[in-house]
């Protein structure tokens, strides 16, 4: 019998498929066809032995895979199954350490709050005093200047009264300006919404078209050119004012024409 180049290996190596394919049995004799029994038996017992070895190896590997898989699952399950959860004592110690730290931080913040707010109060008090002092000095200077400007005072309280009168007038004008502003704004707001609804009712396309005007043009036509603020823009307001009496009856006519 020949079994390829391997024949009988010195070291126990596995039986390969090639080994089996290369096995050649010698014919027994012309009289009795077939292989030599002894050779066949030897090969069969080697095959059996090899298969046995493979089976046991497979079983060992299967056990190992199971063990490893269990280990992986155990790890993936996480942390719930971490070998040793922290002890109650450790948790208590860390908790009290954390509380101590929290208190220190809170105290530091509170201290900083007190220091800054006291500093601010002092700063504000000083500024207020300085402003009052400055105000007093300026007033005294103005009074002195007024007296000097009057020359020989014909009426002892003349300067004071005129300042008072002026102040009164300024206050009156301020209030008057404010009232005008409010009136005009109210009027304009009403007019704008009126115009928009009336136009929309009569000719919805007109509102559409007005909306589509480029922003620059819109603001120019609403506010008038040149004015820096809406309230200061007398040109546009006067223009609207001309249409006051006709605004409801002829809202569709061009306002201000």
């Amino acid at each position: 019998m020949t079994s390829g180049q391997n024949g009988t290996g010195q070291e126990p190596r596995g039986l390969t498929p090639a080994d089996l394919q290369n096995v050649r049995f010698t014919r027994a004799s012309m009289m009795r066809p077939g292989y030599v029994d002894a050779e066949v038996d030897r090969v069969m017992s080697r095959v059996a032995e090899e298969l046995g070895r493979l089976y046991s190896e497979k079983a060992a590997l299967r056990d190992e895979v199971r063990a490893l898989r269990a280990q992986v699952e155990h790890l993936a399950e996480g942390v719930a199954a971490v070998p040793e959860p922290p002890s109650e004592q450790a948790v208590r110690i860390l908790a009290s350490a954390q509380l101590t730290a929290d208190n220190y931080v809170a105290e530091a913040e509170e201290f900083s709050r007190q220091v800054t707010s006291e500093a601010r109060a002092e700063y504000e008090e000083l500024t207020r005093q300085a402003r009052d002092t400055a105000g007093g000095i300026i007033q005294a200077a103005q009074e002195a200047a007024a007296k000097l400007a009057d020359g020989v005072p014909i009426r002892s309280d003349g300067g004071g009264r005129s300042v008072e009168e002026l102040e009164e007038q300024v206050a009156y004008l301020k209030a008057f300006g404010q009232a005008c502003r409010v009136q005009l704004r109210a009027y304009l707001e009403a007019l704008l919404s009126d115009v928009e609804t009336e136009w929309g009712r009569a000719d919805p396309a007109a509102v559409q078209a007005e909306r589509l005007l480029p922003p620059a043009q819109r603001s120019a036509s609403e506010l008038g050119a040149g004015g820096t603020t809406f309230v200061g823009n007398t040109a546009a307001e006067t223009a609207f004012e001309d249409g006051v009496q006709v605004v409801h009856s002829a809202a569709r006519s061009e306002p201000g024409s």
Partner: protein
Amino acid sequence: MDVAAMRANFAKAAAAGDEAPLYFYSHLFLSHPETRALFPVSMAHQRDRLFSALGDVVARVDDVDALVPILQQLGRDHRKFGTVAAHYPAVGASLLATLEHFDDAWTPELAKDWTEAYTLVAEVMIAAADAAAEQPAWWEADVVAHERRTLDVAVLWVRPRARFDHLAGQSVSLETDLRPRLWRYYSPANAPRPDGLIELHVKARDGGPVSSALVRRVGVGDVLRLGPPVGHLALDSDSDRDLLLVAGGMGLAPLKALIDQVARHGPARRVDLFAGFVTENQIYDRVQLERLTAEYPWLTVTYAVSDDKTSSLEQGDVGDVVIRHGPWLSREVFVAGPGVMVDDTVSRLLQQGIPRTRIRSEVFAPSRMGPSLDGEVTE
């Protein structure tokens, strides 16, 4: 899932007050020390937030339609804190340990229900975070200018290093390395600019760790981290009504952004801004606002001082001054400032007959809390 039993169990932990979150965080940091770096030094305010957030979740646990958007927002928001998917099981384990610790009648069924519920919550949050992964978790931004305008107000200009999209009137949370892990919300005072710059108005609150650092310690060249912008005030894109803007103190910032928006993108409309301060010298942005009124004919700015007898400006609460200048019936109104000022102004405007739907407001608390229910913004 036995929701009633879970609620009863949660109530026991909640009843323990500060003890429960204290136990939870200690447990978490001991079993996963790497998570400690995600939190600020002082955990005091963090603890308040955790259980109120959990309480909100538990309250809505059988109303999935309401719960899911909240969880998604939470998941997205947590990206900027450096939260990754691997942290979620760790939190879940410590949460379970806490709920067990405070309940003498803990059962395996409760453990199973909570595990299921938490797994769902974590899945929704992680999925939302993953979906937002194409945008950065946070943006680094260089401070390119820092101006002290008054004793305690500074105006900062920052330039994000990557493209940062926001809308005029939105708020942005930010963090400085000087105060790690403390995030605060501020409103940019400009609409998006071609050069990407963002203008921030910051008032140092006495004892406020972040605001005082931003005003007094941060300087040009420092780096801030910005979180994703969140919506508050925003112009209605299909309205072209004239605007009435009412600001109290630092509420000026988002309203200035709206002015910038009108200037850049229209539509053309008249804009009246009323800015209220206590004294005249607190008007920290006056020069800049006057430049704007000179440039834009459609803009009017009126200042009001509430406690400054020597000032020649309008006297009184800003809400009162606004009414004196009225009526404003056709206007779209935006109000921003301290709570008292906002409430006062809004109620006066409602009395005037302005419909509620046309008034939008934002309250500026001394320390700007986040809009999310979990209170990611620590204070």
